[in-house]
Structures are given as structure tokens and as C-alpha cells.
């Protein structure tokens, strides 16, 4: 139920509606695009493949945003530590200087 892999549509099969060839790390398979007909994908799009059917288009934008969020993890904490180091804290939640190692 759960094993679904991102693959890139390398071409749409000309004489077979709804079928595209998808590639995952050099492995190719014909995939049925029938579940994405509301916004038909085209060659070059990335889709999520499950049991030979494309379930969803993968949004590169959302993936990049997610990576950005992940990169930011801990950054606000680091910024706080730096601020404390300058003695600029207002709340008394950590009176000690920022001696914590990351």
C-alpha cells in the first residue's frame, strides 16, 4: 500500500493514451497516468509511482521549500544563543551566558 517511488516521465507513449514511460535511476517502466487526467502530466514531470500507476505530481517547489525548512531547523535556536551571548536577552528564561555547545 505504501511503496511509492518518485520517477521522471521520459516520454508519453504516442499510440497509447494515458501511458507514459517513467524512469527511476535508470530503470524504466510504462506507467498508467490515468489518475492524473485532471492535470495531465508531460514529459519531464516527476510523478509518484505506485503499482504501475502515477498517483500524484511531485511539486519541486514544495520539495525545495521543505529542504529550506529543514535547513532552518535549529537556526532560530542558534540565533537565540548568539543573542544571549551578547547579553541582549530580555526574558529571564536563561540567565547564564550561552555556554552550550551545538
Amino acid at each position, binding site marked *: *500500500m*505504501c*511503496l*511509492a*517511488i*518518485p520517477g*521522471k516521465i521520459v516520454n508519453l507513449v504516442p499510440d497509447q493514451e494515458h501511458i507514459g514511460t517513467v524512469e*527511476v*535511476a535508470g530503470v524504466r517502466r510504462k506507467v*498508467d497516468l*490515468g*489518475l*492524473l*487526467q*485532471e492535470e495531465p502530466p508531460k514529459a519531464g514531470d*516527476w510523478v*509518484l509511482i*505506485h*503499482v*504501475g*500507476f502515477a*498517483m*500524484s505530481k*511531485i*511539486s*519541486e517547489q*514544495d*520539495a525545495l*521549500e*521543505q*529542504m529550506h*525548512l*529543514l*535547513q532552518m*531547523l*535549529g537556526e532560530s*535556536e542558534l540565533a537565540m544563543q548568539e543573542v544571549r551571548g551578547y547579553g541582549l536577552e530580555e526574558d529571564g528564561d536563561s540567565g547564564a551566558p550561552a555556554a552550550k555547545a*551545538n
Partner: protein
Amino acid sequence: MRFVDEFRDPELIAKASDEIRRLSDPNRHYRFMEVCGGHTHAIYRFGLKDILPSNIELIHGPGCPVCVLPMGRIDDGLAVAKDANVVFTAFGDMMRVPGTHGSPLEHKARGADVRIVYSPADALQLAKRNPDKQIMFFAIGFETTAPSTALTLMRAKAEGVKNFSVFCNHVTIVPGIRAILDSPDMRLDAFIGPGHVSTVIGCRPYEWIARTEHKPVVTSGFEPLDLLQSIVMLLRQLKAGEAKVENQYKRVVPWEGNRAALKVLAEVFQLRPYFEWRGLGFISQSALKLRDEYAEWDAERRYPIPGTRVTDPKAAQCGEVLKGVLKPAQCKLFGNKCTPEHPIGALMVSSEGSCAAYYNYEHRKAAAMANSAGSAA
């Protein structure tokens, strides 16, 4: 691999793991249920439990369609395969699942025509290429997989392929979650929501969990960073006293789901009034069957089905493990009578059932470490 490797980046994993430690309250014991069998598998495959602090406990939910399939249904499907003309096709996951008289692979060894397919479309192809045979597709899976079966049936009908049928065991995830939450012993803080099921049904179907049960839900992807980020999001909600549904798997899961997929589901399937879930008992409106318009392709109407009911031995405590009340190792049969090689209950049957996953990964690790400690002492 694109959209896979980035989400396994060690530096980011370290960051996420630090954030989890920062956010978790050391005086609190968190119990998060991951519903999907695929999440259970990922947690073990990526060794995520080694990265999480010990006060975060992951409880494995009922989202394993192989595990919750009653043995009687396998017996019924294999009864059809006794006919020499019938080719029994199913996903690899089903092949070693024991029925009362053996698994599909064991039936194959005894002469039945049993074949693995990667896709229901392949089963339909098989039917087209073998007009003298009857191809039966033994369908399993939640809402992730059901639309593919539905679309295949639509194509079979449109193309007039008569020697193809589906033995439908598709189940729906929300009633399974409800059954867990309805249990009086249930003690869960939050849910790591289904990832791929949500690409079809979207995130709305989980809103009642947040609203009525006041438990946070984050629909999650399957890579290590996805799971860790989802845990970060759950911890943030709990810290702020919130309970809402959030979508961590945005790059793939649309909030409103996949309308085309939902349409084909409605076209081909209808809900059964009730269906038995192994380990959980009968749950109403929790499974799909073919509509009358597709009766011709319904294996249950084409072939005589014995309607076998098999009850698991009382000693098998699958239900309690499924609900997170017991840990796998606390079931009396675990590790002695019930192992992955000879499974007695639902959760040992598939490699991502709680007990099988626990056995293959943690139990053996713990036993091996204990052996080493013993021999070193």
C-alpha cells in the same frame, strides 16, 4: 535518486534530531502512532529509533493491508485457484501469507498457477495475452492502491476483456483509525498520518481526530527527514497545546486529495456494510466491493466462494498490539510459537506488521547484543 536522496541527508537528519531533543519535554513520555505499514517499515529500515530520544515511543498502527486480511479470505481466493484454468495473480506481499492449507507460493508448488504481478494492469495484460485462461487478481491495499484496481477494471470493461476478474479485499483507513481510538485502553498522544493514502483521500478525512479526539495529526512522507520533520511538527503542536491536521508531505499530498482517483473509486466500488479485520474484528463501512455495473468482473460473483471464516488462536493478542496496548514482545506467542517463519497472527505475517518488523529488527538486535554482553562478561 532525485526526491529521495535529499531527504536522507545526514547533516539535515542531525539537525532534525537535535530539534526533536530540544522540543521534547524530558518529563513526558510521548506515544505517537504511525498508521501506515510503510512508515513502520521505513522506521526500521532507516534505524530511526536509534536517533530518537527514549521518551518518544512509536506505536505501529493497523495500516498494513496484508496483516489485517483475515485468513479466511486467503483461503477463499486460493479455493478459486484450484481450478486449473484459473491464474491467481497478486502482489509479492501476498505470496508467503499463510492460508489454512498453505500460502499462495505453497499452492504454486503443489501445481496451482500462481503468479506475482507488480501492477493490476499487468494482470489485465496477462488476461489479454492468455484468452484461454481465467485471470483473477487478488486485490489488497488501502485507498492508495484501490484506484489502480478501479481504473484497471474500467479498462477491462471498456476493452471487453471477459477473462479477467478481481477478488476485492480493499479496505479504507479511517475506520481502522477509528477502531483504534474507540478502544478504551488506547493511550496515544498524536498520529503520524498516512502518507500515500493521503495522496488519494487528502488530509480532510483526519480532521475529526484533531477536532473530536484532540490529537495532532501530521501526514508524513517516507524518507528519514520526512518522518523526523513530522515528529518535530507533532512536538511543536503538543508543546503549544494545539491539535490540528498538518501536511508534511506537501510535495506529493494535495490537501483535497486526488479528485480523479476518488472519481474512479466511486465509479467502480461501493462500501461493504461491514468487513472483518484480522485482529480488530468486524468494522462497518470499512471495505470496498465491486458495484453491480462491474458484477461480471467480480470474482466473488463469478466463482463459488466458500466464505471461510478462520479465527486466530485466543492466545494471539494481535488486537491489543495493533491498538498499542501491548508491545509485540509482550504477546505470549511472540518469538516462540509465532515468528516470521511460522506466523500465527496477523502482525507477524507481513514484513511491516508490527511484530514482524519488531522481530526482524529490534528483537534480533537486542538478542544479539545480549548474547555479546553475556559472552563478554
